[in-house]
C-alpha cells in the first residue's frame, strides 16, 4: 500500500507533471554540481594558500635557524683558533661581526618557527628550550672569548682553560641546541607533508563528486531531451542542447582544473619544497662539517671524534661507500668523474656543485695530511686561508641550487593560482545559465498543455 503510494508520487501520471519532475531533477543535479565544484575550488584554494603562501615558505625560513646557530659556533671556533693573530684569514673582527649577524638571523628564524611549530605544546616547549639554551651558550661563548683574549696565545689550540670553556659551549650547541633546531625544521616539514597530502586527497575527492553530479546532470538532460523528442516529434530542443553542452563543458573544465591544481600542488611540494629544504639542510650540514675541521685543529684530544663527525657529515652530503676519510676522497673522485653520487643531499646533482664539493674535500685531505705530519701551523694557515675561499665557492653553488628549486616552487604555485583565477566569479552565472536554459527548453512544451 505504502509502496504504491510512493510509486505514484515518484512517477507522475500527467505529461506536464512528468516534464516538470524531470526538469526539477535536472535543476537539482545542477545545484549539486555547483556545490561540488565550489567545494573543490575551495579545497584547491586552501591547498595553494597553505602550501604555497603560509606554511611552505615559513618552513624554509626555519631551516635558517640551524644554519645561523651552527655558524655562530663555527665563528667562535675560528676566533679561538687564531688567538692573538687577529689578521689571520678573514680576521677576528669579521668573524665576530659574522657571529653577531648570525645571532640576529637566529632570532628572526625562531619567530618564523614559532608561527608554524609553536601550535602544539611539544613544539612550544622546544622553542622555549632553544631560547633558554641560546642564552647559556652566549654566556659561555663570551667567557671563552674574554679568556682567550687575555691569554694572547699564538694561532693554534688555545690554553686548556679556554678549551674547557669552548668544549662546554660547543657541546651545548652541538648536542642540545642544534638537534632541537634541526628537529623543528623536520617537524615543520612533517606538518606540511601531512597537510599537503590531506589537501590533495580532498581535491581529488571533490573531483569524484564533480564527475558524479555532472554525470547525473547530463543523464537527466539527455533523458528530458529524448522524452520531449518522442512526445512532441521534434528532433532537438535547442535550449536543452545548449544546457547539455554547457554542462559537459563545466564538468570537463572543472575536473581538469582540479586535476591540474592537485598536480601543481604535488610538483610544488616534491620538485620545489622538498628539494629546497633538503638542499638547505645540506648547506647547513656542510657548514657544520667545515666547523668540525676547525674544531679538529682546536682540540687535539677530541680530534678523533671530530674527524669521525666530519666523515659522517660528508657521507650524508654525498654518500659513496667508504670506511674512512682516505677511501672516501678516492671514492668521491671516482663518483664525480663518473657523475654518480647515488645518495645524500647532493644525490642526482651534476656539474659545478659537485666539482666545488670535490675541491672542498681535496682541501680536507691536505689539511689532515699536514696535521698528521705535525705541521699544525701550516694546517691552520690552510684552514683560515685558501680553504675559506673554496668553501665559499661551494656554498654559493649550493645557494644557487636552493634558489633555483625555490623558483620551481613559486612557478608551480603561481600556475595553480592562475588556473583558479576567475572561477569564483564565473561559476554562479554558468550554473544559473544552465538552470535558465532548462526552463527555457520546457516552457513552450508546458504551455501547449494550458
Amino acid at each position, binding site marked *: 500500500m505504502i509502496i504504491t503510494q510512493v510509486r505514484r508520487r515518484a512517477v507522475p501520471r500527467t505529461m506536464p507533471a512528468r516534464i516538470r519532475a524531470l526538469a526539477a531533477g535536472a535543476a537539482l543535479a545542477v545545484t549539486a554540481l555547483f556545490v561540488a565544484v565550489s567545494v573543490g575550488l575551495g579545497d584547491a584554494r586552501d591547498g595553494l594558500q597553505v602550501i604555497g603562501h603560509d606554511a611552505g615558505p615559513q618552513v624554509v625560513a626555519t631551516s635558517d635557524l640551524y644554519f645561523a646557530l651552527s655558524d655562530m659556533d663555527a665563528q667562535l671556533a675560528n676566533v679561538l683558533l687564531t688567538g692573538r693573530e687577529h689578521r689571520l684569514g678573514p680576521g677576528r673582527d669579521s668573524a665576530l661581526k659574522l657571529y653577531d649577524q648570525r645571532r640576529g638571523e637566529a632570532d628572526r628564524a625562531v619567530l618564523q618557527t614559532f608561527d608554524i611549530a609553536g601550535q602544539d605544546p*611539544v613544539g612550544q*616547549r*622546544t622553542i622555549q628550550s632553544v631560547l633558554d639554551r641560546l642564552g647559556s651558550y652566549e654566556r659561555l661563548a663570551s667567557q671563552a672569548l674574554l679568556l682567550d683574549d687575555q691569554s694572547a696565545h699564538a694561532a693554534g689550540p688555545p690554553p686548556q682553560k679556554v678549551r674547557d670553556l669552548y668544549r662546554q659551549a660547543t657541546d651545548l650547541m652541538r*648536542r*642540545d641546541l*642544534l*638537534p*632541537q633546531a*634541526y*628537529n623543528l625544521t*623536520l*617537524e615543520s616539514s*612533517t606538518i606540511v*607533508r*601531512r597537510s599537503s*597530502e*590531506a589537501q*590533495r*586527497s580532498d581535491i*581529488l*575527492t571533490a*573531483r*569524484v563528486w564533480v*564527475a*558524479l553530479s555532472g*554525470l547525473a546532470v547530463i543523464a537527466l538532460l539527455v533523458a528530458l531531451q529524448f522524452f520531449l523528442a518522442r512526445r512532441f516529434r521534434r528532433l532537438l530542443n535547442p535550449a536543452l542542447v545548449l544546457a547539455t553542452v554547457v554542462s559537459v563543458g563545466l564538468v570537463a573544465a572543472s575536473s581538469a582544473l582540479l586535476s591540474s591544481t592537485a598536480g601543481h600542488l604535488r610538483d610544488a611540494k616534491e620538485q620545489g619544497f*622538498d628539494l629546497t629544504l*633538503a638542499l638547505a*639542510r645540506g648547506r647547513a650540514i656542510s657548514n657544520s662539517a667545515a666547523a668540525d675541521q676547525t674544531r679538529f685543529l682546536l682540540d687535539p684530544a677530541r680530534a*678523533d*671524534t671530530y674527524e*669521525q*663527525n666530519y*666523515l*659522517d657529515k660528508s*657521507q*650524508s652530503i654525498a*654518500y659513496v*661507500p667508504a*670506511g*674512512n676519510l*682516505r677511501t672516501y676522497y678516492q671514492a668521491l673522485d671516482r663518483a664525480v668523474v663518473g657523475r654518480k653520487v647515488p*645518495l*645524500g643531499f647532493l644525490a642526482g646533482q651534476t656539474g659545478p656543485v659537485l666539482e666545488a664539493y670535490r675541491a672542498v674535500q681535496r682541501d680536507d685531505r691536505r689539511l689532515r695530511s699536514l696535521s698528521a705530519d705535525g705541521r699544525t701551523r701550516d694546517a691552520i694557515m690552510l684552514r683560515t686561508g685558501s680553504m675559506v675561499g673554496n668553501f665559499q665557492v661551494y656554498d654559493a653553488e649550493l645557494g644557487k641550487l636552493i634558489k633555483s628549486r625555490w623558483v620551481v616552487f613559486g612557478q608551480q604555485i603561481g600556475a595553480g593560482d592562475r588556473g583558479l583565477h576567475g572561477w569564483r566569479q564565473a561559476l554562479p552565472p554558468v550554473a544559473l545559465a544552465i538552470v535558465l536554459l532548462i526552463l527555457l527548453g520546457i516552457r513552450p512544451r508546458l504551455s501547449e498543455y494550458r
Partner: protein
Amino acid sequence: MKRIFLALILLSGATACATDGHGSVEGKHTLVIGVKADQPGLGLRRDGRFTGFDIDVADYIARKLGASKVEFVGLTSADRERFLDERRVDLVVASYSITPLRKTLVRFAGPYYVAHQDTLVRSGENGVRGVRDLKGRRLCAAKGSNSSLRVTEEREVKAVPVEAASYSQCIDKLVSGQLDAVSTDDIILAGFATDRAGKVKLVNAPFTDEKMGIGLNKDDIGGCEAVNRAITSMYQDGTAAQALTRWFGKAGLKITTTVPQFEGCH
C-alpha cells in the same frame, strides 16, 4: 556508461589509497618490536621477560603510537634488516646504529640516543688507553655489527679481528682470554661492565658518535614521523633521562639527556 562508472570507482579507490596509512605502525593495536635478548642494560631476556633501556624506549614509543599491546621478539644484529623487510617486526629497537648503507635498506626514526664508541678490556689490562693502543691486539668482531670496522677500517688501527656471534659471546671470549678487547657503543659496554664487575673494565676514551636509530619498514614515512614525535616527548617529559640514569647511571657513564638530532624521514 558502464565504462564511465568503472572509471569513477577506480578514481575514488585511488584517492582512498592516497590517505590510507597502509601498513604503518601508526594506530596499530599490536606492535611487534625486535629487540636484543643478550645485552644487559639494553635488551636482555631473563625467564621470558625482556628488560633494558631499549625495552623502556620501545614501550614508551609503542604507547605514544597508540598501541595497546606490545610483543617483543629477540633478534641479533644480522637479523634486523631482514625482519623489517619481511614485516616480521614493526619496529627494531636493538642498539641499531644509523649508517648511510643501512639507510638504503630500512627507514630510520631517531636517533633516540647518540652513544660513543669505547673499548672494554680485562680488569688487569693497563696497556690500552685509547683506540690506537688496540694495534696488534685481538679485537672482537660481532656478526652484523659495524663497530670493529670503526677501529680497523675507519681509524686504520691494525687490530686482529676475532669473530663472535654476538656481543655476549664477545664478552665471554674476553673474560676467558680468547681475545683482548671489545670495542662498541659505550652503553652496550656499560651494561656488560656492570654485569661482570671486577672481571672487565671500560677504557673511557670515546672516539665516535653513534646514532642509535629505530628501524622501520622502508615504506613507512608516516610511522617514522610519528616515532620522532614520540622520541621528542620522551625527552621533554623526563622519561628518557630517568631510563638512562636507571640503566647506565651505575656504570659511571657520562650520559646526554637532551633530544638527539634526528635523521629525518625522507
